[in-house]
Structures are given as structure tokens and as C-alpha cells.
């Protein structure tokens, strides 16, 4: 079975640009998560979907970050407008759910905002 696929692997953006990161979860998984990873803050949960419904909208991240799940096999994370502090690795993960179950992660997208 294919794992979680994230594209692109690397993204460079100018401050103020809009970028869209993509994720394809493991087939058959019901839960999808977006995390941001930095050295200082570690892994921070941005968004969480269960069966395509948004369960967690990111709290402090919600103003410029928007995650969508267009169908059960594809999700996007839009950052608009980007700021240099958004430079990080963005990780997508999926799981069968519903309770604490194994999260399967993609390899991430490394975003650099200049």
C-alpha cells in the first residue's frame, strides 16, 4: 500500500505569496492531520479532519492557514499570505481513527519564505 504522499518536497516563496501544499493520505484512512515542525516549537497541530469534516481549525494558525479536504484521498493546506516565520517543515499524517491510533506521516514539505 502507498503511504502518505506530500508534494512538493521543497517550496520557496516570497513574503506575501500564497502557497498550497498537497497531501494524499493512506487509502482507507478516515483521519487526516496537518502539523508544522520547527526546531523551537516542535510538532504543532494545525488542522485535523475526520471523514472529511474539519474537527480542529488550528487555533492561533487559523487566520492565514486554511486546510481543506476536497475528497477522502486529497487534502490541501493554503498559507495566505506567507511570512518568513512560516518557514518550517509541514507534515501531513493520516490514521484509521477514531481513537488514538497510529499516525502515518508523509516526508513533509520544507517551506522557506524569503
Amino acid at each position, binding site marked *: 500500500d502507498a503511504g502518505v504522499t506530500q508534494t512538493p518536497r521543497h517550496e520557496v516563496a516570497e513574503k506575501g505569496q500564497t502557497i498550497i501544499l498537497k497531501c494524499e493520505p493512506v487509502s482507507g484512512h478516515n483521519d487526516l492531520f496537518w502539523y508544522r515542525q520547527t526546531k523551537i516549537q516542535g510538532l504543532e497541530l494545525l488542522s485535523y479532519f475526520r471523514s472529511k469534516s474539519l474537527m480542529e481549525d488550528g487555533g492561533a494558525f487559523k487566520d492565514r492557514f486554511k486546510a481543506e479536504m476536497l475528497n477522502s484521498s486529497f487534502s490541501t493546506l493554503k498559507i495566505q499570505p506567507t511570512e518568513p516565520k512560516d518557514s518550517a517543515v509541514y507534515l501531513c499524517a493520516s490514521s484509521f481513527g477514531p*481513537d488514538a491510533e497510529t499516525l502515518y*506521516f508523509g516526508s513533509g514539505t520544507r517551506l522557506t519564505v524569503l
Partner: protein
Amino acid sequence: SQLAEENSWALSVHEGESVTVNCSYKTSITALQWYRQKSGKGPAQLILIRSNEREKRNGRLRATLDTSSQSSSLSITATRCEDTAVYFCATDLDTNAYKVIFGKGTHLHVLP
């Protein structure tokens, strides 16, 4: 503040030695998970231990869970250079089991 925290930022051991990574957490949980992340990859789960379990093993790995002290440990025996990675503990909030929160990780270096 972190809901889950590993107790060491970095550890170094020599190949063949054993090492233990500790984790403390702040809420009641349904399960605690240990993940390992190698450079350039996403985290991969090593062990999931549920709140009614006290110990779980996976090959050279052994995880313990003490709900009374809200702590967990991950022990690796006979370490290998390829065990070099960042190790995370992750917990869910008992009231929101879907929300898996990660600690900041322990960097383990296994030296030849």
C-alpha cells in the same frame, strides 16, 4: 506549555549500549505513542501503549507507562548506528482522543 515532554534534549551512546528516553505528560490519556524521526523523513510510530497497559515490547524496544506519575519510558537495547534519530512521545487528550500532541523530541546519537 507542552502537554507531553521528553526529559532530555539529546543523548549519546555507543553502539551496543542500552539507552532510555523518558517522557512526562500532563493530562489523562487513552494512549501514549512513541515515534522516531530520521533526517528528511516524517515520524514513524514505534510503539503505542494504551492507558490500561503497563509495558509493551517491539523487538529491541520496550515502552512502559505509569499513569499514576503520568510518565513513560522507551528503552532501546543493543543500540545500532541506525537508531540515531529524534524520538518523540505523543499523547491524546482523553476528552479529545483525536488530538495527538507531540513532545519536542529527544535527539539520540548512537556512536560507532
